[in-house]
């Protein structure tokens, strides 16, 4: 835990940098707001059509869900990778354990590709 103390310094410096950037922006930049300057940026049309806050398709959600599940699975590889080297003297137990684990993960991947869930093709 002591090792993380310098991260605190870094945090402070980062905050200082952010505050500095913010004040520089505030102090140096001129301001003369106009109605058209402050309106939504649109390309080709004078007035923006509809709100930007309209629902999307769910395919982004599918990407995020897959990321979540695979991230959790990948996170379990890390403790395994850490102790694998030392466990080698005790035979292939850990290797087999991880191959089983990874086999199930690969099954999931195969399912995704088969069903073309991400609409990749």
């Amino acid at each position, binding site marked *: 835990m*002591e*090792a*993380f*103390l*310098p*991260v605190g*310094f*870094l945090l402070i*410096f*980062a905050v200082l*940098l*952010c505050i500095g*950037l*913010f004040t*520089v*922006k505030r102090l*140096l*930049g*001129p*301001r*003369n*707001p106009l109605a058209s*300057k*402050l*309106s*939504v*940026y*649109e*390309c080709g049309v004078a007035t*923006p059509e509809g*709100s*930007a*806050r309209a629902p*999307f398709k769910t395919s*982004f959600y599918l*990407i*995020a869900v897959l*990321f979540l599940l*695979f*991230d959790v699975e*990948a*996170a379990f*590889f*890390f403790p*395994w*990778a*850490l102790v*694998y*080297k*030392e466990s*080698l003297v005790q035979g292939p137990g850990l*290797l087999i354990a*991880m*191959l089983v684990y*990874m086999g199930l993960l*690969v099954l999931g*991947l195969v399912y*995704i*590709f088969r069903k073309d869930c991400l609409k*990749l093709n």
Partner: protein
Amino acid sequence: MEWTDIIITAIKTAVIYLGMVQVVPIMLIVERRGAALMQDRPGPNRVGPFGLFQPVADVIKMMMKEVTIPRQVNKALYLLGPFLVLFPASLVVAALPFGDFFTVFEKNYPLQVANIDVGVLYILAIGSLGIYGILFGGWASNNKFSLMGAMRSSSQIISYEIPLGLAACSAVLWYGHFNLREMVYTQEGTLMGVLPNWGIFYQPLGFLLFFISAFAETNRLPFDLPETEAELVAGFHTEYGPMDFGTFFMAEYMNMATMSGLMVAMYFGGWHLPWISDATLLQWLGSRNLLAALQVLSVVVKISFFMLVFVWVRWTLPRFRFDQLMRLAWRNLIPLGLINLVITAVIMYFRGAA
């Protein structure tokens, strides 16, 4: 911990952090001149000798420009957006090793902000926070282009985080350590007498995966879909003013430097010079601090090399399409990452059994 320790650590942190921030102006000129070189034109060469003061002019221009906060934005998150990107980019620097030790008042201090024993996990974890700035900034802008750019950018970043994690995982597997410093220690010496004992020779596939994913993570050109200026104007920072754009830019370059630093530490021997061991060098130089300076120089040279590669690739390769990008991540890189993990594990098993 004594007071001197704390002060020296603070100064060390400040120096390393400022060094990382310096990457931004340097890269500003390098990138513009590099682009010019590749497109066979002079590039910015008016301000100062060889245009070297161009970044200064650019920064002054950014500062003096008008600040507009569009009417439709959610103000708090809009203002916070750029800093939410810059913050993780700054924190990630902590785990990068720049050298072995330097000595002040007969005491050794590691040339690293914090010697974290879960270094790789730390970088992956904090690095993954950068997408919140993009998401919230894009959403708070309340603009179709921004939101679209933010969604695209974040789905790209999260998709490529998995191959990145898998590649890092096989490096961890090979070294048996999370700690980047320990990884670098293992890479000293030579391999079979001719090659430097660097990670890339043990993990070529892992390095390739990491390299590709690093481009995607930092939103650099073959994968700069969030910014596709032809389709999305400027992506998630469409509604942002010059200084906020500068902040996003800064975060991007710092992320690039961190990714390069991570690659150097994991695959390119960190601070080690090829073929020469640290003990020999210490004998030649005779001073610990001189050696530390040389090590820092070595890391800086290696990082600069990768930064140049980033620029080089940017002006060489065309941009991917969104579905190609996703296919590359899910169809090719993730299975390759798993295969790499299995190959590494099996090789290690047979090496250990023999």
